[in-house]
């Protein structure tokens, strides 16, 4: 059950016609009725099906691959192996450590080795079984400890520093001095486990080469532009000979943010066979492709004055990266860089090390890189509040960083509604009457957080705009918006329609959005880092304002008035000073077309570059045009006989600047809270760590359990059902930021972060047990209760 919560002083009237109205997504009925066309719904004549042969070893050298028996099977059209696509790639251009199909080594159970295109999936599967791969099995390293302790056993031979993929050490101010001067130092060790995205739609890709040699790739991706670039690089064909189309996508959450083996495989096999080739993952392959939340091992020391001011934060983290870099360079920076608000840190130091291991690669999951350290710091604050006998909300208020300011790591903060978020959840949850006052077994916890609205710098170096939008008007009163944006269900196409409709005076249904087709749309970088509303929204606003100006000018000419006297709203051009004078919007568009010719415009958005980030190395990573803020309060009950935690309620207030579509913002808040709740209480992307027999001897022959996924189905990877989900109470706080379109900031990821520590802080309030190693399990609660009784912690 869900219910919205509202600030007491929420304004009644709206200054806009479409912006802020309680509309839904115009395309949502298609998804509900089963009419939306996902990649797997597309079938082309003569289409072949591809399957990928995957490694049964966590770490092995490939000695030879014999595909002859597969090729001989009837119905097989082509087989492809790694040497045919030797170019290494990676979504981050500085760390190209992946190959479409492994040629020299396999690095996790499930690494792709070869692929077959055949008349059916069954034949392709049968052919895969006939491919003979000779491996030299190597010692698998499935924990960061093992990988760091064995630098000579390199998972990537070309890596400079053993198995370390990235280390970031940054310091701001005198951390040691401030820790020494602090009245209270809280020291804690935290473990954040791995989790994955769980999007409903498995990855799928379809490729086809037409008579002119144009390669078209349809793919379930959330970054069509990066896919486009990497396809060109790996397939060695120029980008203008490739068209990337993203059909309807059934959820991404970060799990479709980079190229995957199946996209290269489908494209290469289409090129080899001259036929369309489709490749669809099984659910297990989705778990293997992963790129989910990195497991973090964190050690934090935080110094406070006796009145609760944060003097120093000192964090050390080890990130379990899995077999490839993915976005890991960014993750490693984010693990420290995004912690600098909403609180003032007197001094700050972090040291984060990302390590290769023989497991599915980790990457970006909703709240990329910053959900884990946020957990640690917010629990640290809760511990400090207890020790200092200060209300945890009050302690957070005392450290509030403010608006139009800079963080200690020199990021520019614009609008900031964090205090309003705290106040909203404090009131809605009845915090003052309940926190630390409920009967044993029931408790409340609070936590706060911040997130970026996109990053100031693109992941490849360029001065090109981050977003481009093209708009055309036509004689029927329709508005057509062309944008490279990637709607993965979050509603980016709706957002564009809202912005265009607001400016051009039409209804939401009058706007047709054509998105994510590289032949038809200007480039947008994609749906990651919560960038789309701010960036593509601004680009769309620019393009729409340009056209609206021309329409008003043409109408003004007809009426013999000034352009400023004409407004466009509610399918009308309206004379501002005389309500009796108006034209149907279609007439207005026609007047403009007569005056100016075919009505089209473009708009683009480039991020601010001056004075928004630090000048130190890495000072641009994590810098954003605008930051969102969030506060959560969780209410839990703990069953002390079973150790089971039931999360009863979660209140979440989120400052998204301006809610262009409040219903969608509430949906993002609820979805984020649900996801964070799931990974706190039950979800765990767990890879079996040990190949050792119980007597300590390593198994001498054959493969072992090491590196196998413990949960490779949606039955065993337990995501909460509606019966498990707490009551969610979403609240929108609007602190418009001048950098966002109509003041809008992000809403898609921020509302996840502080769910996790809010639940853990509530558990402590309920029963006095701290769970600093996630996920929360009944066994950990029982162990904590036992320690309590025996005078332990």
């Amino acid at each position, binding site marked *: 059950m869900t219910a919205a919560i509202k600030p007491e002083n929420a304004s009644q009237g709206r200054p806009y016609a479409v912006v802020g109205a309680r509309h839904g997504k115009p395309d949502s009925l298609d998804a509900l009725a089963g009419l939306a066309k996902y990649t797997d719904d597309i079938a082309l004549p003569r289409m072949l099906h591809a399957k990928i042969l*995957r490694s*049964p*070893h966590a770490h092995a050298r490939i000695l030879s691959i014999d595909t002859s028996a597969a090729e001989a099977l009837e119905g097989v059209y082509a087989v492809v192996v790694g040497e045919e696509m030797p170019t290494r790639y990676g979504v981050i251009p500085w760390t190209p450590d992946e190959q479409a199909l492994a040629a020299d080594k396999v690095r996790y*159970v*499930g690494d792709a080795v070869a692929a077959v295109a055949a008349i059916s*999936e*069954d034949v392709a*599967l049968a052919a895969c079984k006939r491919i003979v791969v000779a491996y030299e099995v190597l010692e698998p390293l499935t924990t960061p400890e093992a990988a760091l302790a064995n630098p000579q056993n390199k998972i990537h031979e070309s890596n400079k520093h053993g198995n370390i993929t990235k280390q970031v050490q940054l310091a701001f101010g005198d951390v040691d001095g401030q820790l020494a001067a602090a009245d209270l130092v809280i020291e804690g060790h935290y473990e954040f486990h791995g989790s994955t995205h769980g999007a409903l739609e*498995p990855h799928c890709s379809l490729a086809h080469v037409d008579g002119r040699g144009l390669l078209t790739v349809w793919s379930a991706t959330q970054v069509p532009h990066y896919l486009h670039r990497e396809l060109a690089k790996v397939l060695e064909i120029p980008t203008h000979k490739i068209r990337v189309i993203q059909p309807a996508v059934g959820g991404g959450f970060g799990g479709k943010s980079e190229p995957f083996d199946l996209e290269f495989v489908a494209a290469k096999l289409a090129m080899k066979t001259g036929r369309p080739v489709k490749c*669809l993952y*099984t*659910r*297990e392959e989705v778990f293997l492709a992963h790129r989910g939340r990195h497991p973090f091992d964190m050690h934090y020391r935080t110094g406070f004055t006796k009145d609760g001011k944060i003097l120093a934060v000192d964090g050390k983290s080890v990130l379990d990266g899995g077999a490839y870099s993915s976005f890991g360079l960014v993750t490693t920076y984010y693990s420290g860089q995004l912690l600098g608000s909403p609180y003032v840190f007197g001094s700050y130091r972090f040291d984060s090390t990302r390590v290769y291991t023989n497991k599915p690669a980790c990457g970006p999951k909703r709240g990329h890189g910053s959900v884990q350290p946020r957990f640690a710091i917010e629990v640290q604050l809760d511990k400090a509040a207890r020790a200092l006998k200060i209300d945890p909300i009050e302690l957070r208020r005392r450290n509030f960083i403010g608006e139009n300011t800079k963080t200690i790591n020199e990021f520019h903060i614009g609008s900031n509604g964090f205090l309003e978020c705290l106040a909203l959840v404090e009131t809605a949850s009845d915090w003052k009457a309940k926190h630390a006052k409920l009967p*044993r*077994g029931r408790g409340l916890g609070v936590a706060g957080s911040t997130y970026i609205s996109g990053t100031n710098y693109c992941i490849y170096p360029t001065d090109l705009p981050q977003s481009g939008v093209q708009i055309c008007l036509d004689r029927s009163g329709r508005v057509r918006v062309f944008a490279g944006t990637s709607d993965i269900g979050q509603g980016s196409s709706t957002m564009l329609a809202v912005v265009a409709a607001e400016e051009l005076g039409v209804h939401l249904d009058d706007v047709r959005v054509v998105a994510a087709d590289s032949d038809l749309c200007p480039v947008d970088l994609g749906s990651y880092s919560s960038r789309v509303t701010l960036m593509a929204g601004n680009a769309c606003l620019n393009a729409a304002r340009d056209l609206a100006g021309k329409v008003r000018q043409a109408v003004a000419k007809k009426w013999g008035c000034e352009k400023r006297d004409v407004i466009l709203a509610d399918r009308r051009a309206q004379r501002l000073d005389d309500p009796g004078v108006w034209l149907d919007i279609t007439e207005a568009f026609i007047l403009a077309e007569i005056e100016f010719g075919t009505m089209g415009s473009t708009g683009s958005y480039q991020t601010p570059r001056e004075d928004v980030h630090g000048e130190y190395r890495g000072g641009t990573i994590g810098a954003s045009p605008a930051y969102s803020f969030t506060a959560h309060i969780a209410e839990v009950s703990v*069953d*002390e*006989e*079973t*150790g089971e935690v039931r999360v009863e309620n979660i209140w979440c207030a989120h400052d998204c600047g301006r809610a262009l579509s409040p219903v969608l913002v509430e949906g993002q808040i609820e979805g984020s809270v649900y996801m964070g709740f799931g990974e706190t209480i*039950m979800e765990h992307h767990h890879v079996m760590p040990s190949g050792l*027999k*119980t007597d300590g001897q390593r198994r001498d022959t*054959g*493969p*072992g*359990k090491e*590196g*196998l*996924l*413990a*949960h*490779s*189905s949606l*039955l*065993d990877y*337990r995501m*909460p*059902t*509606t*019966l*498990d989900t707490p009551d969610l109470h979403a609240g929108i706080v609007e602190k418009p930021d001048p950098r966002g379109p109509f003041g809008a900031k992000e809403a898609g990821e921020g509302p996840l972060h502080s769910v996790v520590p809010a639940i853990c802080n509530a558990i402590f309030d309920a029963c006095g047990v701290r769970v600093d190693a996630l996920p929360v*399990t*009944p*066994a950990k609660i*029982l162990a904590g*209760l036992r320690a309590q*009784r025996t005078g332990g912690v």
Partner: protein
Amino acid sequence: MLRLSPFTLHQPKTLDEATQLLAQHAPDVRVISGGTDLLPNMKLAQTKVTHLVSAKFLEELHGIERTETHVRIGAATGLKTLAEDPDVLELLPALAYAASRIASPQIRNMGTLGGNISLDTRCRYINQSELWREALGGCLKSHGTECHVVPGGQGCVAALSADTVPSLIAYGAVVELASDKGLRRAPVSELFQQDGTWHVRIAREELLVAVEIPIPSPQTRVAYRKWAVRQSIDFPLVSVAVRLDVADGVLAGGSVVVGALGPRPRVLTLERLVGSTLDEKLAQALGQMVYDRARPLPNIPYDAEYRRERMVVEVRRAVRSLVGLPERPLTPQA
């Protein structure tokens, strides 16, 4: 998506036709009655057969009948029907509850009582894809020679995961089986063997026709309790039925039936506790008894030590619910 290997579906209209088909194709045959367990297992190539005999059109396998002494439930009765049937709810509430806790509404719409009784055993090392099992090197149930649950173990210990079985045993249910050789009857308590590769003592030629359950006297109280991480979808991680026979306000007999251990349920009788008063002490005593005599294994995917602790709590709570105490103790447990 996972591919389903080709098979021939037989849809007999009579029991004779069905048993002849089974005899003709055994052992390369299974009865399909809902298919919510069988088809996924076939997709994972864990079950490999090419003939399926449908129970859907066999009249004898449908319907719930109440007589003076028994409730007879056709094996192809749907789980949703079973969970909502007024006679079952009135006379066999623990069975109705067990059926209502199986999987999800969609699966209960498809799944049947006979299907649930015959549900294959489950283990983290077998309910996996072929790639996964190949990477593991197989196990006793899948092309291998090694048990990963019990190192050095010679028999498969995959877990009985059928929610209905513990309460059926507690109620003293008997199954009726048909084959081309005729009918036979067997108590559900004797239907299972300690072999996870084929744990049901039902031959491939046999068809489960019906379950007959004696109507319990008013002095008999049965409760089923299931624990899984989620409130829906999941197979049981802890599965217990408790039966208390009461006479003159004290315990006169009964049993505790524990599922989700190995391939066979553990049945513990309560003779030693006859004469006990119906109170928290009895709840604690039964909890201790299962702790001592039933041990969850690291076969299904959850911490076995916790499952053991949880099993005890669920037994206590079952007893409390049967003797009119609040389910949770009023003060925190010592």
